[in-house]
């Protein structure tokens, strides 16, 4: 779907490998969940084992600020 809404997209750009499966991570669909709220996102995921990677900048930036906002709801 072209007009699907994602809150955030991170493209692995072929630079991330799943160590367990030995294959590159690809851009895949994922969901953040916190305090009964869910947010669709696109993150680097392993197409085989399903490992979802949350980069440091994302965790400390966007994710942290959304967490703070939800905590005060």
């Amino acid at each position, binding site marked *: 779907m072209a007009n699907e809404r994602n809150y955030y997209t991170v493209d692995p750009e072929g630079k991330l*490998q799943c*160590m367990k499966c030995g294959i590159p*991570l690809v851009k895949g*669909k*994922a969901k*953040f969940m916190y*305090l009964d709220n869910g947010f669709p996102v696109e993150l680097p995921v392993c197409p085989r*084992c399903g490992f979802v990677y949350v980069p440091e900048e994302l965790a400390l930036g966007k994710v942290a600020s959304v967490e703070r906002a939800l905590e*005060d*709801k």
Partner: protein
Amino acid sequence: MQIEERGSTHVYKVNRISKEEIDTMVERCVYEDPPFCNAACPLKLDTRTMLGAVAEGNLKKALQIYEKAAVFPLILSMGCEAPCEEKCRLCEKGDGIAIRAVEAAVARFGPVSRQDSIFRTKKKKSVAILGSGLFPLFLAGEVEKKAYPLTVFCEQPDLDGFLRCETGFLDSDAFAQELKRLEEKDITFVFNCEFTEAFLEKQRTAFDVLCVSQEVLDGLAPGCAFDSDLMICRETCLVSCREKGVMAAAFGAKKAALTVDRLVQNLDPSSNRGKEGAVASRLYTDLSEASALSRTPVPEGGYTAQSAIEEAGRCIQCHCEECMKSCSYLRHYRKFPGLLAKEIYNNTQIIMGDHQLNKPMNACSLCGQCTVVCPNGFDMAHVCHLARQNMVSTDKMPLAPHEFALLDMLFSNGDAFLSRPQPGFEKCRYVFFPGCQAAAIAPETVKAAYEDLCERLDGGVALMLGCCGAICDWAGRIELEAQTTEFLARELSKLGDPVIIAGCPTCKKELQEHHALQVRGIWDVLLKIGLPEEAHGLDRPVALHDSCGARGDAHTQQAIRKLAQQLGCDLVETPYAQDRSPCCGYGGLSAYANREVAKEMTEQCLARSEAPYLSYCMACRDRFARQGRESRHVLELVYGTDAGTPPDISEKRYNRLTLKKELLQEIWQEEPMESKLDFQLEYTPQARESMDERMILTDDVVAVLTDYRLTKEAVLDEENNLLIARKRIGNATFWVKFTKTGENSYLVHSAYSHRMQVVRRNG
């Protein structure tokens, strides 16, 4: 060890504070009470703001303020009896402010703002005033200001004659200025009138409300009953005034104008009037810095603009700021407690929507300093504490700000907990309870103290390493607090319900509150049994910081002073000492909820003296040392130990475990069970530093790596060759970036966490 995260959809109400209770509390704060000069003015002139504007040289703004109270500023300022002046607080130190003379200069030299009365939409009901003199003049000004179509009937042949009546004290310049002001008002004048019965009756049909001068009233309705609060003769329904004098006329006109308002709305004139006239003020003003001053002399003909500015500059702008001066938390949020308390209470009542006051509610250190410094004992700590409990009870309290501290408490009363009678005793007369912070920050001191107590006290001294429960109390977690109390009570009873020797004033207070046992401070015990040989003070002056845990406990404050004296300490007096002492920033979990505020608290403590700090709470010792100040706990001086550089959060845990292990081995000859790691971890300095900042423990990193070694789940970032693994622990996911340095060894480059859960989704 886990604390359950709250849900976000629970909607129910709990009221731990009632609206009435909060209103009574809020009432205590006198910040919003008017200054004494203002309170004494029947016209409610905002004297303080006006004087402030004059002091800044802004006469235009000053005149705008003055005109709100005075419709004819020159007449009022030149004729007013100035009841405000004798109420000025500066009278207690010298001359009060020459308020009336400043007002006169404002009226004379203040640039008049554009009058736009012509463009105002007029009201429908019409008003007439019959007669002349100060009351009809002022009333005309007030009624015109309210935008009623107004007609003034007078005996005089012209406006000049009307204005001259009862204003003989004006000089010609002032008269000219007020005449101009009168001319600019939107009033219809009818001159050369004769006030006969027939004339009156005619106007009764033509106007909705009739007002008359005292002379006209006496002429037409002699001896009628008159209500001088409402300014009305009810019998004839005439609005009037029976008193003479400038202030009487001005105040009478204000009350009369309100009566006019009520009459046109067909309401009883007494309804809905609020507080009129002069009031009593409870405002508190600190005069300690105001010196005995004398008035700028008022020359014949009044102040020039310049001398008025000078005189107004003497006004100290009475405000109550006692709490703001002493509490950096209140200064941070720039709100006086009355308002902040109300907002925090409202925050607890929100069911749906943003709880914007969560952060301020959790940033107060619950230290109680405000209650001591406030002249009315305002208790902000009580408000914030109840609000936290309320939020927890309604499941609206975010767990994030307090989770680390709560888990730390569970750790203190779990893995790091130790409770043993002295070897050779089954039950003990005493138990030493050093407090969780002492074990974390100064384990050597705890050990030395325990050994000393065992040696010198009879009847057996047990040891209990754990947390007193202050942490969950501060977090507003009532259930957890009850569980903690129960747990400690059980352990204490196993030891034979001994007398508790507390090493920390907060523990002492907390344990006293929850356990029916005798609790003493170790300082009292030491005063009784004398100092050990190794005890000695520092060789330079030290500033004593009183712990907020000892607020209201004069006995402890004095005992510490005596102890310091016996140690040979040269104590430096600091402002805000004993009961007035500020919090170091650890209290109330401030440092977890708002690091910035907590830092400001620490800085405020340290600003009191340049000297090294001596404290009797380990948390204070720790925060001062972290801030770079030489800082010692009194027990370090007693036992000749030095806890040195403050530990980071992981070291604090490690210290507690190690202390427990060593004591078990050395004193109780027990070999603790230890699970040895089968791999080794090293950290880059940056990793260690940022972990402390992000509240990530080495234990968390170990858990991630242990998991990785089992599952081999990780990502390789080819850009920098770092491996990245993760594990969900409790309510957060922890990520570790590392490299392999050997078969079973790793170097950690970074660690981070988030509370959100992340899952794959299809479609």
